[in-house]
């Protein structure tokens, strides 16, 4: 609304220069006097992943998958196009996940590995070089320099940005097996799987041995399904006891009835059971397939190639094929040194290709997700069978399979295996990790070698080295410097000094006794955890052609397992609120002359891209949040450019801006003026400079100003800003050179606010008309449905027809009468309220904490109301109250007003917040209040309104307009606080009175003694003594009870 005023003002005065416009309207903009100008200028200034092919481990609706993060996220974005949030001019997209997808993460508290639900998916345009971080065992992950991974520091696991890491640093990876957390499957029902495929693929597949299904009911169903001239086939099915799979699709039948059936190709002899047991046989067979198997893509056969010397293994495999698939395979010698086991079974090939999906040939081999749903023993079986085929020493490993032993009993130090499938290489690493087995990797480029004079081409291969003695794996080493505080082990000291040893084995740490080593406090938690560390081998920039880089959000855990070889990655986005950097603002003020000041404001925000700097700082009415419906801090008045203009008009000096957007970007320095005739930026200086922080913006201004302390001064403004932004740190150097630090009250960042489209009831006619003319939509119907929330297609049609217009009309073809007519009809129509989850309130607890920090009171209470809506705009009201302590006893209460975390210091009496405070009956809460006035007493009341659109009474944005819905919510919040306060006041008053009365007994005693002595002739002193003794005894029983009650109440309010 206020924006409209500014727009109208600007339009009306287009003919005059911006400086004239500014001068005429400075009162509206907050620059009406030098004192206020200073404050306004400061307010303006103060306010303001992984690459696509990285595999990630997820569980989608319970099914395990190792999937490329890019593919995963892109597919979800494609499926839910309408629901993504597009942020930062399309550079960032965000999607809330409704599906149940979980990632593997570690619990930051217990350090145990678990599945955790993913809440958001992100992708953003790559805006920095991409780096590959490679660990000592060969695992690597590609990420942006500001994406974090985890390291261990002084015994604690903490996240660290890639840009802050160097070679040799320790990175957190899973150490123990995590596969047991997966659900186990015991059998694969092939019919069920086949039914999931497209019918075209399964046209020739029949199900056999189905005599028991032909009930009258099924026959009836079949006859209805078949055309009349084909109905005779039902008799054939019954006779031959089979049914085509594609007919089965259409029958109403439970699959349980098909348990003992077979499947096969039509007219083919080879049939296989439709139920495959997932047992050790299956696992071993698939392991051998991974190593030696292939499937012809024409489905002619599945075959396994063995060396001719591996006779035992050949027999064993043939046996497995029969056991699992009931297929008798034949051995065919391929050449001198090789024997193939061939299964000419089309159905087997089909199953391998479309259902089991272990890959067709050596290059495309992979491990499907289903394998991770096998139990540990079976996964181990599969691994051993694979290693027996592809690994060395093959024979020894094969022995292990037969004797059911573990690799630790092998006579060699390590098992080596090689594959040319990068896919298989990655998945094997996850398989090993799921089993808690540690390994090393290697890589050899493709090369040509001469073997016995014959040229042989070797393609590039990936090597895996699995240690038979797991204890000596690097993963079991921890950094000495971050595990041990101090020690008096001279051998160790020697090794560190002479041999540069910087790792130490877990076992050494576990077995050490406290006399020789002092460990970091939390290292024991880590030693006991599911985690290990591996050192960074190198970090280097790689070229990246992906359209996006990706991230996911895993609430609570804030990490997920990803990479070529599993590595825990932090979920993080780039800068500031979105990047979860806690904001810090530094303000410096210096007095230059009596009425002239220098101010500089520096933040650690995301920075501003170079080409935007002149427009933002030196063009009036640029970059307003017109049409963006998102709760945002700051953007007071008409923007920082007004402050720049004021500075320019009062001192003639230009504004100095420095901004840097990231570590690998230069810092840009501008000196800017506003060309007041054309309202265009005038660049005085433009150069690159040094900047202390990685990112942030700094503005320096000189201006005519009066610096005053007090209720409307800069100091008070900063104090209140600190209250409304408990997560921010403010450093202030005042004109006297004194440094004042407002520390953070909480380290938790506020919930991010979301951008929403405008609600049709929340806009003025003027805005509606300009939206009509500027919309990108082609017709009225899509204008209403796309540019607004909560208008559905049918609804739009109804509204447009009611206005006697056509849905196909071009939005910009409406004349102003038509526009107004449509607008009025929309305003009258019942439209669902907008969503309210797009707001970011300060939060009850945080608000109270920051008030406690800044206000010296004895009692605090706060409340955050549920979100509601006024005129189509969602909003949240929060209120907090501080009472007693060192607060001023007399006079009216101190009222702090906030809108979207910005303090409102002027126009208190015009504000809806003030009205709501006055209208609340404070006498109900034992607080004195005269009619039509603020209540009185030692009280500070803070009220915050968070909304996508706070309705201000004027463009200087100092008072909230009087909407009944808003006033109602404020009053309800105040009443809730008032009730808490009243109960506190009553308690304290009662306790005080009771104490006073208890002391009254002492005073009563001489009186009653003299009266009694009068009656009884007993000596007065005797009576006094006795009574005093009784009093002392009973006081013990009297007082503690009351004190306990008081403490109990205190706890209660804290909890709240």
């Amino acid at each position: 609304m206020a924006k409209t005023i500014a727009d109208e003002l600007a339009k009306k005065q287009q003919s005059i220069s911006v400086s004239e416009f500014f001068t005429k309207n400075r009162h509206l903009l907050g620059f009406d006097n030098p004192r206020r100008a200073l404050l306004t200028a400061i307010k303006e200034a103060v306010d303001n992943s992984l690459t696509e092919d990285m595999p990630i481990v997820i569980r989608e609706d319970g099914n395990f998958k190792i999937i490329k993060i890019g593919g995963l996220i892109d597919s979800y974005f494609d499926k839910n196009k309408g629901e993504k949030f597009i942020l930062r001019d399309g550079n960032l997209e965000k999607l809330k996940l409704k599906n149940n997808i979980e990632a593997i993460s570690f619990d930051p508290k217990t350090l145990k590995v678990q599945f955790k639900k993913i809440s958001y998916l992100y992708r953003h345009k790559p805006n920095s070089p991409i780096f590959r971080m490679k660990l000592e065992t060969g695992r690597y992950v590609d990420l942006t320099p500001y994406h974090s991974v985890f390291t261990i520091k002084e015994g604690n696991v903490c996240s660290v940005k890639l840009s802050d890491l160097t070679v040799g640093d320790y990175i957190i990876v899973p150490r123990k097996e995590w596969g047991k957390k997966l659900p186990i499957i015991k059998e694969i029902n092939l019919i069920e799987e086949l039914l999931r495929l497209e019918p075209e693929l399964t046209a020739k597949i029949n199900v056999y041995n189905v005599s028991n299904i032909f009930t009258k009911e099924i026959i009836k169903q079949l006859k209805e399904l078949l055309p009349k001239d084909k109905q005779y086939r039902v008799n054939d099915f019954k006779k031959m006891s089979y049914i085509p799979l594609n007919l089965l699709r259409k029958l109403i039948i439970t699959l349980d009835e098909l348990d003992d059936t077979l499947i096969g190709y039509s007219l083919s002899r080879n049939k296989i059971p439709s139920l495959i047991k997932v047992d050790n046989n299956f696992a071993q067979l698939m392991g051998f397939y991974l190593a030696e198997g292939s499937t012809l893509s024409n489905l002619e056969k599945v075959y396994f190639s063995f060396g001719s010397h591996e006779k035992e293994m050949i027999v064993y495999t043939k046996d497995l094929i029969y056991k699992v698939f009931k297929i008798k395979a034949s051995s065919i010698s391929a050449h001198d040194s090789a024997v193939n086991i061939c299964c000419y079974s089309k159905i087997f090939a089909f199953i391998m290709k479309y259902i089991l999906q272990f890959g067709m040939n050596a290059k495309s081999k992979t491990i499907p997700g289903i394998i991770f749903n096998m139990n540990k023993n079976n996964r181990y079986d599969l691994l051993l069978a694979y290693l027996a085929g592809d690994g060395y020493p093959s024979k020894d490993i094969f022995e292990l399979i037969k004797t059911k032993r573990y690799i630790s009993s092998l006579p060699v130090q390590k098992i080596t295996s090689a594959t040319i499938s990068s896919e298989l290489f990655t998945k094997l690493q996850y398989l090993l990790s799921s089993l808690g087995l540690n390994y090393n990797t290697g890589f050899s480029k493709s090369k040509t070698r001469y073997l016995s004079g014959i040229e042989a081409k070797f393609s590039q291969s990936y090597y895996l080295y699995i240690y038979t003695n797991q204890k000596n794996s690097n993963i079991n080493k921890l950094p000495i410097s971050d595990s041990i505080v101090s020690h008096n082990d001279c051998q160790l000291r020697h090794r560190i000094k002479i041999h540069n040893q910087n790792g130490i084995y877990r076992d050494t740490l576990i077995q050490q006794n406290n006399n020789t080593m002092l460990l970091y406090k939390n290292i024991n938690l880590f030693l006991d955890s599911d985690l290990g560390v591996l050192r960074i081998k190198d970090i280097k920039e790689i070229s990246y052609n992906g359209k996006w880089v990706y991230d996911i959000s895993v609430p609570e855990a804030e990490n997920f397992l990803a990479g070529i070889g599993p590595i825990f990655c932090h979920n993080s986005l780039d800068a500031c609120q979105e990047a979860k950097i806690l904001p810090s603002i530094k303000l410096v003020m210096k007095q230059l002359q009596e009425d002239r000041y220098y101010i500089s404001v520096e933040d650690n925000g995301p920075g501003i891209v170079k080409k935007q700097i002149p427009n933002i700082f030196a063009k009036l009415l640029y970059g307003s949040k017109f049409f963006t419906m998102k709760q945002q801090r700051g953007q007071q008045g008409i923007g920082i450019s007004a402050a720049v203009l004021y500075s320019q008009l009062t001192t003639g000096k230009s504004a100095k801006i420095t901004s840097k957007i990231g570590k690998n970007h230069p810092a840009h320095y501008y000196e800017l003026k506003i060309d007041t005739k054309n309202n265009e930026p005038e660049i005085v200086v433009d150069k690159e400079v040094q900047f202390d922080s990685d990112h942030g913006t700094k503005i320096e201004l000189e201006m005519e100003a009066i610096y005053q302390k007090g209720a409307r001064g800069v100091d008070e403004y900063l104090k209140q800003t600190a209250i409304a932004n408990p997560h921010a740190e403010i450093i202030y150097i005042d004109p006297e050179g004194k440094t004042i630090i407002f520390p953070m009250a909480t380290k938790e960042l506020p919930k991010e606010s979301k951008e929403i489209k405008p609600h049709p009831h929340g806009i003025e006619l003027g805005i509606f008309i300009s939206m009509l003319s500027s919309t990108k939509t082609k017709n009225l119907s899509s204008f209403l449905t796309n540019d607004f929330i909560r208008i559905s297609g049918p609804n739009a049609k109804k509204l447009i027809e009611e206005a006697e217009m056509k849905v196909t009309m071009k939005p910009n073809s409406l004349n102003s009468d038509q526009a107004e007519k449509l607008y009025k009809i929309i305003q009258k129509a019942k439209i669902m309220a907008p969503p309210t989850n797009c707001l970011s309130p300060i939060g009850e607890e945080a608000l109270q904490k920051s008030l406690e920090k800044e206000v010296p009171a004895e009692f605090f209470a706060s409340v955050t109301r549920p979100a509601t809506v006024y005129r189509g705009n969602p909003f949240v009201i929060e209120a907090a109250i501080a009472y007693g302590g060192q607060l001023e006893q007399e006079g009216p209460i101190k009222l702090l007003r906030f809108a979207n975390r910005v303090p409102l210091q002027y126009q208190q009496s015009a504000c809806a917040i003030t009205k709501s405070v006055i209208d609340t009956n404070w006498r109900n809460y034992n607080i004195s209040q005269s009619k039509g006035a603020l209540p009185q007493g030692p009280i500070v009341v803070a009220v915050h309104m968070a909304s996508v659109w706070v309705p201000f009474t004027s463009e200087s944005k100092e008072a909230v307009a009087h909407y009944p819905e808003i006033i109602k919510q404020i009053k309800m919040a105040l009443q809730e606080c008032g009730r808490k306060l009243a109960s506190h006041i009553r308690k304290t008053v009662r306790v005080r009175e009771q104490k006073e009365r208890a002391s009254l007994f002492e005073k009563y005693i001489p009186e009653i003694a003299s009266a009694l002595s009068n009656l009884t002739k007993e000596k007065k002193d005797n009576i006094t003594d006795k009574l005093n003794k009784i009093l002392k005894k009973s006081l013990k029983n009297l007082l503690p009870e009351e004190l306990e009650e008081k403490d109990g109440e205190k706890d209660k309010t804290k909890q709240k």
Partner: protein
Amino acid sequence: MAKKTKQSRNSTVNALEDLGKNILSQIKKGKNPEIAIPIRALSNIEFDEKSKMVSLGNKVSARYFFHIAHAKKFLQTVEVAAVSHNLLREDKHASLRDVFYMIKRTIPGTKANIVDEQSESDSVIEDLELITDHSREQLNINANKNGSVAGKVIIEDKGDTIDWSKLGSGGWSIPSNVEEIKFKKVTAQYVLYMEKAAVWERLHEDKFWEKQKCIIMSSQGQTTRGIRRLLQRLSSEYKLPIYVLCDNDPWGAYIYSVIKYGSINLAHISGKMAIPSVRYLGITCDDIEKYKLEKHGIKLKDTDLARIKQISEYTWFKDNKAWQKQFKMMKQSKIKLEIQALSSRGISFISNVYLPEKIKNKEFID
């Protein structure tokens, strides 16, 4: 007589000293001292159908010293006991107001007074009557004089002979203690007691007592103990019928019932006060109709209606059909009538017409 008085005085002194000793022994045992006091409230009132009297039940409450809510009352009780003890020893009498001032003082070191209002000390005196089982008069504490009487009666009081028919326009004012008055000659045939002093003055001016050969008596508002005792003596010693004239409202009805059956507050001394033979003369709801006084009624307020409901449930009214009928008529007509409303029919209508007719026709309510 003097001997008898002394005996009574000794018994009172003993009762007070027993109270002191009892408290002291509790203190010596290290106990939180307590005084047991019968409860004076409707919940502890019994109405004896046979004797037609209100009497106090057995419910007793304990008053502790070390109890935030009781301490002050406890102190007041002991203070009043000590004051009364002194009065008795010195053979002096004090008024209720005197007693208030005798114990009223600020407790050193506090802002609290032992008593703030006379009602507090009055109430403690009533408690003390119950605790010691001796009446206020026996405790040598007198109420203020209240009420006037005139009629054909000659009495002797402290050696003076007084003729109630020769006391000018004011009549004789009734002292709070009438125990020691001696009746020398009573020629009146009945007693007419009225709620309003103004009505008494009217009748006195019209020499109503002379014409009707009666005694006219009044107080202002609630009937004091002195008047009630005097009425009882006239009733029991000379068998004079007693007639009561009150406003036609629930408050008037209660004044009548206090004279007849005793009061809730002083239920413990009903035996000395209640006059079960007393009759209610008017104003009745029937009078309103009979003398066409509807226009002169005052509209009943909510408090009046609530009071009607309350007293109509009192045991002594509950089964009294005549009174229930009156209450019902009051509620229906929604008006109340003051005695003075009779003046609308002429200033001496009450003495010339209303009362003689009523008495002649025996239009009473029991």
